[in-house]
C-alpha cells in the first residue's frame, strides 16, 4: 500500500467534498433548511375544483382507483383529501414513469417573456414539497411549461388530449397515452331531431352521461335510473337515451389529470414573523 498515491485520493475525495459543500450544502442552508418540506397531505389539503369534477364525471374509474369512501357522493372532507393526496402521488409517479418531464418543464424563468407566457415563477419555498422530490424542473421543452397548468384547461380537454393530442392540437408531437383508457359501456342521449334539423347538425349526434361501466347490464341499470329521475317536463328525453360501447379514462388517467390540475395551485403558508 505504501506506493499508493495518497495525493490522488486527496484530490478525489477532497474536490468532491468541496463541490458538495459549495453546490449542495450551501444552497440548502440558505433556502430549504429554513423551513420543513411540505408533505403530500399538506399540498393536497386544498381540493381543486377539477378534482371534485373528475369524481362526478368519471364515477366508476374514480371508485376503482381511489376507493369507495371518497367516491360516495357525500364523502367527508377528510376522505376527499386522502383521495386527493393519493391521486397526486400516483399522478406524479406516472408523470415520472412516462417521461413527461423530458418534454415538459416545471420551471418558469424570469427571462424570455416566460412570465407573460407561463405565469407565476416559483419561489424556493413553493418548490419545497414532497411532490418535488426528486425535483421535476426538466431540461427540455418539446411541449410547454406545466408549472401553472392547474385550471388552465378543462378536464374534458385533458381527457381528449391525453388520449390523442392531435385531436386538440393538430400537428402535436406528443404521444397519445391510450393505455390509460378503458373500454366499457356508457349512457348517451341523442339530440332532439327537430333541433338537429333546424341547426343543421347530424341527427345521430349524442351526448354522454357520466359513468363508463364495465358491463352492458350496469350501463342499462344506470340508464333506467336516469330515466326515472328525469324532470317530468322533459320526460320524452328518456326515449332518446341509449347505451353504447365507449372509451374513457381509467383511474390512472384521472390521477394524471388531477396532478396536472393541481400544478401551480398550492402555496405554502407564509412563515410567521417572530
Amino acid at each position, binding site marked *: 500500500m505504501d506506493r499508493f498515491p495518497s495525493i490522488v*485520493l486527496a*484530490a478525489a475525495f477532497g474536490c468532491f467534498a468541496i463541490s458538495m459543500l*459549495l453546490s449542495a450544502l450551501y*444552497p440548502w442552508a440558505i433556502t430549504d433548511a429554513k423551513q420543513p418540506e411540505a408533505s403530500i397531505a399538506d399540498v393536497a389539503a386544498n381540493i381543486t375544483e377539477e378534482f371534485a369534477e373528475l369524481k362526478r364525471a368519471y364515477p366508476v374509474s374514480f371508485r376503482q382507483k381511489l376507493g369507495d369512501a371518497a367516491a360516495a357522493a357525500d364523502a367527508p372532507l377528510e376522505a376527499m383529501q386522502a383521495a386527493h393526496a393519493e391521486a397526486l402521488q400516483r399522478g406524479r409517479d406516472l408523470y415520472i414513469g412516462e417521461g413527461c418531464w423530458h418534454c415538459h418543464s416545471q420551471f418558469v*424563468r424570469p427571462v424570455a417573456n416566460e412570465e407573460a407566457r407561463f405565469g407565476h415563477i416559483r419561489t424556493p419555498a413553493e418548490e419545497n414539497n414532497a411532490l418535488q422530490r426528486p425535483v421535476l424542473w426538466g431540461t*427540455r421543452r418539446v411541449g410547454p411549461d406545466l408549472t401553472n397548468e392547474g385550471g388552465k384547461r378543462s378536464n374534458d380537454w385533458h381527457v381528449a388530449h391525453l388520449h390523442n393530442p392531435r385531436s386538440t392540437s393538430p400537428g402535436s*408531437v406528443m404521444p397519445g397515452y391510450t393505455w390509460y383508457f378503458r373500454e366499457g359501456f356508457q349512457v348517451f342521449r341523442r339530440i332532439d331531431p327537430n333541433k338537429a334539423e333546424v341547426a343543421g347538425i347530424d341527427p345521430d349526434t349524442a351526448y354522454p352521461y357520466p359513468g363508463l361501466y364495465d358491463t352492458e347490464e350496469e350501463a342499462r341499470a344506470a340508464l333506467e335510473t336516469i330515466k326515472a329521475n328525469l324532470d317530468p317536463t322533459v320526460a320524452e328525453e328518456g326515449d332518446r337515451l341509449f347505451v353504447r360501447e365507449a372509451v374513457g379514462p381509467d383511474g390512472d388517467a384521472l390521477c394524471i389529470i388531477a396532478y396536472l390540475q393541481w400544478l401551480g395551485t398550492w402555496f405554502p403558508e407564509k412563515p410567521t414573523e417572530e
Partner: protein
Amino acid sequence: MSEAAAISIDDVRDEAHPLVDKDLVRWHLIAAVFFMFTAMLGGFIASLQFLNEYPFNGISWLSYGRLRFLHTNEVAFGFLVNSFVGMLYYAVPRLTGRRLFNRTLGWLIFFVWQALVLLTSIGQLLGKAQAVEWGETPTGFRPGTFELNYVPVDFLIEVGAVLLAVNLLYPIAKSIHKRLYVSLWYITAGMIWLILTYVMGNTLPEWTLAGSSGGATAGLYIHDLVGLFVTPFGWGLMYFFVPIILRKPIWSHALSVIGFWALAFFYPLNGVHHFLYSSIPMSVQYGAIIATIAVEIVVTTVVVNFFGTMWGRGYALRQSIPIRWFYTGMVFYFTTCLQCSFQTTLTFQEIIHFTDWVPGHAHLVMLGVFAFWNMGMIVWLWPRLTGHEWYSRRLLGWHYWLVMLGLLIMFLDLTAAGLVHGFMFKNMAPWMRIVDSLKPFWWFRTFAGAMIITGVSCFIYNLWMTAKHDKPYDYRVDLVHDPKEAIANG
C-alpha cells in the same frame, strides 16, 4: 522503467498466466458494442416521435418517454461503462505490471453488470424510472417505505461499482513502478468519483432534498457523471493509447498534471449551470458559471498537450484509424467545451435553454468525443484480442466517415433548431407554430441518425467477420511511420 517493461512483456508471453485477461476484455467490448447498438436504435426510434411517424403508437412499454430513458441509460451504463472497463482491464495491468485483484471477481462483475443494465432498461420500459436525469435507474421502492415494487437496481449498481473499484485499484496500489503515470491518476480518481457521484445522485434528490436544493444536486449529478466518470476515464485512456500508437512520449508531463488538478477542482463545481435562472440562490449560480468558464482553460491545456504530442506525426492521421478517431474526438472536445463556456452565460441561457441546442451539445460530447474515443480504442484492440487481421479495412473507413459526418450533421442541425426555437419562443410565437417550424430540423436529425446507425452497422459486421475468419494479424502493418523515410528506404 526498463525493469518494469521487462516484467510486463514476459508476463504477456506467459500463455498460462497472462498479465491481461484478454477474454474478459473482449467480452466487455462485445457487451459495449451490443449496448451501443441497442441504445442508438432506441434513440433512432425515439426521434421518429418528433416526426409523428412513430411505429409503436399505443404500445405503452415502447412509447417515446420510456424509450428515451433506455437510450441515455444504455449509452451511459451499457456502452460507456462496459467499454471503459474493458479498456481499463487492458491498460491498468500494463501500466502497473500487476494483474487484476481477482479474475473470477472480474467475471462475476461482468455478468452482474450486464444483468443490471438489462434490469434498468426493463424497469424503465415498465414505467419504473426515477426522476433524476441520466440516473433514471429504478430505485425499486419508494423512499421511506421499503416495500419493493421492482428490483432495487440503484443499490445493486452501487455494490457493483465498489467491487469494480476493488478489482482495479488493487493493481494500482501494488504497482511495480515507484511513480504512477498520469493515466493512473485519472483512473484512480475516476473510479472513486464514479462511486461517490452515483451514490450522491441516486440518494439526495430522491430521498432528502426537495425543490431547489434537490435541483442543485440533480444538476451536480448530471454534470459529475460526465465530468467525473466519463471524462477522467476517457483522458486517462488517451494518455495511455496515444503515445503507444504515435510511438513517442506525451509532449509535456507538467501540462498533464495541471490538467488533472484543474479538472478535479473545477469540474465538480459546474453542476448548478444546468439550472440557471432557477430558484437556486443566485450566488451559487454565478459560482457555477465562473467555474464553467474556468474549465475551458483546463481543457485548453490538455488539448494543447495532445496536439503537441502529435507535432511532427501528422501522417498518423492518415495511417492510423484509431488516431483519427482520437484526434477527431479531441477537436470535438475542444469545440464542446468552448461551447460550454459561452452557453453557460446568462445571455446564451435565455435563448438556448430548453431547446434542441442542448441535445445537440449532449450528442457532440457523448457521441462525438467519448463514443469516438471508445470506438477508436476498440479498433486498435480488436485485432490484438482476436489475433486476426481486419476483415475489411475499407469498412473501417466507411464506419469513420458515416459516423463522423452523421454526428456533424446532427450537431449543426440541432444547434440551428435550438436557435430557431429559442428566438421564436422569446418572440411569443404560439407553441404549435414553434413545433411546426422545428419539424424539418427533426427530419434531418433522423436522417443523421440513420447515417450513424449505418456506419455502426458496418463496424459491427466488420468486428464479427474479423473474429470469424482466420488470417493472422501482423501488428507491424499498424505501425505509424514517416512516409518520406519509407520512400528513402526504398
